[in-house]
């Protein structure tokens, strides 16, 4: 860490308390573990992004001229696997969540600090496995591992990749477990459930999904491995099994997993919008409980990924209907965020720009989810680029925007330094433009009929693909910028005050960066969440010019 060489403040804080590699690798301080996660997650983001760029480069022309078919298949598989399991699932909970959950509720640490560290090591072991797997041949099944292709046909490294996902899965189970116990048992005096910041509610709901869903995918992976290694007939029809059962078990986790990704980002958005509108959140209870509702209802809709897979049409009806029900709490959130801005006092800081981006892109991604949930439409667009566009709109446009917004918002707290506001706004703009250019054409591509996971495609799809590839390079630049200026700011950034945004929330009541045990003395909470009525705003926007 660059900050290690340059004490940010005279006061002792979690960054300058101890130095040396051991003080990081064996730390049980949740804030340091959050930074360890930050490093490793960012690493995997760039790996995944590199694969994405290669995918887009290959798709520049209809012919498969850049890489071999096998290579292409491995590229999108590894892209999906790295992005989902090693980036998007841990990204918010394990970094910002880890850093903020204890501070926001006024605790000294998570309930099980050593388990927290173990989670990170599990993640790293999983990461090493997946890297090893990639370097020695990779996997070509798609991130969904569908049987019987994965168990009986491909000759790539399924077992190793499965093991990597399995191990990373346990990392996220333990994170979730830690969060739930912490929220239940470690709240500061006065921090009632009705006063919890919405970021906490969101992480709490996420944790529920993590502990209930992840074990199912873990056992599914074991069954796949057993079938592959010992020819135990469980999913392979040649051995008497039913491949659809695999899909049921896989999506039982992997659909709720998409809410693992989005919920924490939604939490971030609630924090940012309130802060930069200087307002209490509109409908606190509804926003808080809709997180929990999404977590629970999210378990009821998994088979909407299987509408044409050959399952019963009656079950398809049920799952389609329930998919619409889970969209309602998302709608509630969107409307409440919008209403929060009404009669606010809105400043256009970088985090707020990302929040705007989130609102727009998540809405589009969510609304196209409604297309997919509609049985009649899904038959045509499933397994086309329409689906690819849908989930990138939510996962990149939604989750990633939220995450970047959060990183900017809490960077002063994490590093004790301000990021350069001008550059921040510029990067946000570039990301927004690049993103839309990359993924909007894919909606059209999908409806016109270009299937996904295609190495070569029909020439009439080229124009839209070229647009998409062009967009992805812009997007790449947009993502590199924050990387650079965050690093830069650690050394040269303006020193951050304790509360640069005049924000509510306990995390702003401690020093920047916080001390090892977060607070000098346990805070007593006697105010509601987002108490902006009673916080004076200055004209100074933190680092904004």
């Amino acid at each position, binding site marked *: 860490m660059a900050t290690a060489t340059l004490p940010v403040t005279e006061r002792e804080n979690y960054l300058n308390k101890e130095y040396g590699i051991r003080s990081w690798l064996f730390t049980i301080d949740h804030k340091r573990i959050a930074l360890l996660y930050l490093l490793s997650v960012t690493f995997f983001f760039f790996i995944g992004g590199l694969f994405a760029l290669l995918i887009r480069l290959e798709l520049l022309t209809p012919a498969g001229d850049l890489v071999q078919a096998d290579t292409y298949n491995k590229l999108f598989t590894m892209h999906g696997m790295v992005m989902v399991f090693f980036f998007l699932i841990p990204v918010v909970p394990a970094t910002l969540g880890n850093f903020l959950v204890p501070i926001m509720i006024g605790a000294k640490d998570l309930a099980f600090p050593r388990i927290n560290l173990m989670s990170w090591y599990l993640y790293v072991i999983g990461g090493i496995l997946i890297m090893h797997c990639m370097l020695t041949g990779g996997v070509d099944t798609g991130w969904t591992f569908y049987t019987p292709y994965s168990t009986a046909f491909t000759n790539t490294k399924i077992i190793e990749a499965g093991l990597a996902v399995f191990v990373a899965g346990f990392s996220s189970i333990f994170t979730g477990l830690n969060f739930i116990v912490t929220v239940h048992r470690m709240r500061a005096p006065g921090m009632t459930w009705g006063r919890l910041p919405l970021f906490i509610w969101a992480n709490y709901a996420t944790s529920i999904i993590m502990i209930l869903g992840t*074990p199912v995918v873990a056992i599914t992976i074991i069954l796949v491995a057993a079938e592959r290694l010992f*020819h135990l007939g469980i999913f392979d029809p040649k051995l008497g099994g039913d491949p659809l059962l695999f899909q049921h078990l896989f999506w039982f986790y992997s659909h709720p997993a998409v809410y693992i990704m989005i919920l924490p980002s939604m939490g971030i958005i609630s924090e940012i919008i309130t802060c930069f509108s200087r307002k209490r959140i509109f409908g606190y209870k509804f926003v808080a409980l809709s997180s929990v509702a999404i977590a629970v209802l999210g378990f009821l809709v998994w088979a909407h990924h299987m509408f044409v897979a050959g399952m019963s049409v009656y079950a398809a009806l049920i799952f389609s209907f329930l998919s619409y029900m889970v969209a309602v709490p998302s709608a509630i959130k969107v409307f409440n965020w919008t209403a929060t801005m009404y009669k606010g006092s809105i400043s256009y800081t970088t985090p707020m720009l990302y929040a705007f981006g989130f609102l727009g892109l998540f809405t589009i991604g969510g609304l196209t989810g409604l297309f997919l949930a509609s049985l009649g439409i899904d038959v045509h667009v499933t397994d086309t680029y329409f689906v690819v566009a849908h989930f990138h709109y939510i996962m990149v446009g939604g989750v990633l925007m939220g995450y970047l917004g959060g990183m900017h918002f809490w960077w002063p707290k994490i590093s004790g330094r301000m990021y350069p506001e001008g550059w921040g706004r510029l990067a946000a703009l570039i990301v927004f433009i690049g993103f839309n250019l990359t993924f909007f054409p894919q909606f059209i591509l999908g409806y016109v009929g270009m299937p996904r996971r295609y190495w070569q495609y029909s020439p009439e799809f080229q124009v839209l693909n070229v647009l998409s590839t062009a967009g992805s390079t812009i997007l790449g630049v947009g993502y590199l910028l924050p990387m650079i200026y965050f690093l830069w700011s650690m050394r040269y950034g303006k020193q951050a005050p304790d509360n640069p945004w005049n924000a509510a929330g306990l995390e702003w009541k401690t020093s920047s960066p916080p001390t090892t045990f977060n607070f000098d003395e346990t805070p007593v909470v006697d105010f509601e969440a987002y108490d902006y009525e009673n916080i004076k705003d200055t004209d100074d926007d933190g680092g904004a010019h």
Partner: protein
Amino acid sequence: MSDSPAVTAHNPELRHHFADMAQQKDAASLGMWLFLVTEIMFFGGMFCAYLIYRLQHFNDFAAASQSLDITLGAINTAVLIGSSLTVVLAVNAAQRGKRKLLVFYLVATIVLGCTFLGIKAKEYTQKFEEHHVPGPTFHFIPTRMAGHPEQPPIDERHAEMFFSLYFVMTGMHAVHMIIGVGLFSVLTFQSWKGRYSAGYYTPIENAGLYWHFVDVVWIYLFPLLYLISLHG
């Protein structure tokens, strides 16, 4: 020292980030229960597969199930229930600060756990000799065909599937037992050294919860795999 009353404020086992021992204990027990919930879902995936395939291939599953040894299964159930008793008595001894009794019950649990695993190993060997282990050597002739000539012919693949699930389910259960035995070995050692007292015995209690859970899983596995298909 083992009999000293619960000291809350300055107990050496109190970790820095908790206010008091009560909070620490509550956190640990909630954490353990949440972990058990993940275990429910973990086994749940296999139960789901078993349930669905049994409904689909009822006859084949019934025929295959009848080749299991109910006597051994029943003995093992009793052994496991016995070990649950010794565990709960161990926790009880710890609560009352009885170090030697605690060690005794922990050792008893380990012994019973190993007995279970031994009997399981015997069953596995039998299956192996009968060629009931899925794979290229698999071969299955339903035993009851003799008495009931009217029985439909068995689809061997589905019988094999029964054994696949049998091995995966009991295998995962056995893995949990092995982990449990390992855990108790460490705890026995620590108890012997006098680490646990009436004021602090959370690890014993949590390991006990884990063990009981593994017992409950078997309580379901036994009838599902061995018993319910006798008249299929």
